[in-house]
């Protein structure tokens, strides 16, 4: 929980706090924050700014029966229960999208033992899970726009160093990287991109339209 070495940058946290991120990025940030106390504290700081902005607003006129209708909405509904965090590998926000933990993922093979599952998209942005067998490289790729990679299981290494569970790598389009799963354990990552990934080697580039990476 507290050994996160690579964490989310402030502008993404503020974007999350303000509700300005596309859904796939929201998912990665919410999942990362679930695993990192530092990110949680920084996010709370940006949400406090939102609270202060709300507090300073000049109020809008409410409907005459606004309060009564609110009471009517309240009546008969039980208090919202506390939701205990997940016990699985996937934190709760991810489990909600997947429909369960690791075992519920509908993987599709992308060759050489690697697998992926598309989770959600909004505009050009997509979120997917990637499974890389222990010791193997993810197909070499670059991408338009920003790419967030959050490690959920195992670890990978690339030019930026070693990334283990809870670590988040932020890559821009200049990065032409080849994350390689550490030996010993298969690696599962949650990845959000705001442009299509482009594979840089010939074969994967041909395969790209079929796999929709």
């Amino acid at each position, binding site marked *: 929980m507290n050994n996160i070495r690579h964490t989310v*940058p*402030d*502008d*993404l946290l*503020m*974007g999350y*706090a*303000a*509700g*300005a*991120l596309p*859904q796939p990025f*929201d*998912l990665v940030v*919410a*999942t990362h924050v679930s695993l990192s*106390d530092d990110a*949680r*504290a*920084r996010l*709370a*700081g940006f*949400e*406090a*700014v*939102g*609270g*202060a*902005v*709300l*507090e*300073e*607003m000049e*109020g*809008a*006129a*409410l*409907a005459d029966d*606004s*309060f009564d*209708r*609110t*009471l009517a*909405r*309240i009546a008969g*509904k*039980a*208090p*919202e229960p*506390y*939701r*205990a*965090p*997940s016990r699985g590998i996937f*934190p*709760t*926000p*991810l489990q909600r999208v997947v429909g369960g933990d690791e075992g519920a993922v509908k993987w599709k093979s992308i060759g050489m033992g690697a697998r992926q599952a598309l989770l*959600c998209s*909004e505009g050009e942005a997509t979120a997917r899970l990637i499974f890389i067998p222990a010791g193997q490289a993810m197909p070499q790729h670059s991408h338009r726009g920003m790419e967030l990679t959050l490690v959920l299981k195992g670890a990978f290494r690339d030019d930026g160093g070693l990334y283990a569970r809870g670590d988040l790598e932020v890559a821009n389009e200049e990065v032409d990287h080849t994350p390689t799963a550490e030996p010993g354990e298969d690696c599962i990552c949650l990845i959000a991109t705001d442009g299509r990934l482009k594979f840089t080697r010939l074969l994967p580039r041909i395969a790209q339209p079929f796999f929709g990476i």
Partner: protein
Amino acid sequence: MPFALRMHRGTGRVVTGPADSEGQWAARIAAIATTRDQAAFAEVFRHFAPRVKAFLMKSGADAALAEECTQDVMATLWHKAHLYDPSRAAVSTWIFTVARNRKIDLLRRYARPEPEDLPWGPVDAPDQADALAMQQETTKLAEAIRSLPEKQRLLIERAYFGDLTHSEIAAETGLPLGTIKSRIRLALERLRHAMM
């Protein structure tokens, strides 16, 4: 016993400080959580519902949708009052997050992914000093926002109304967020420690 509850208990009403101070809002939320106090809820509604509605309208909702959504947000506060932790957020912060999430649910039509709750659940006794420190930091933050140059203040507001895309948002706000962050960090560590 929660700090805010202790202030509240026995009198049936809030006892110290100006009526709209951070501590008073926390006490009202505690009263809603523990005794389903409708008078306390009415106070919270009177102050925050018009602001929530204005926030939703500035974010692009028409008046009818904003009204509907405001009632929904206020009802959610009632149902979630027992989950509010004054050592980790001011009431205005908490209400902002509820309003923001509903805004995304309604305007963008997807269930917003939220971080999972902390492993220990809502605690019986939020640390009194932490809660107080959080209230003071929040008051300071509001003052700092008020004293920003207008151009910068408007930019921050626009970011939070959703007028800026994520690539336009600059996290450099010029606001003293370092202290509030360390306070929250401290509160998290204390909680973790107490629960292990």
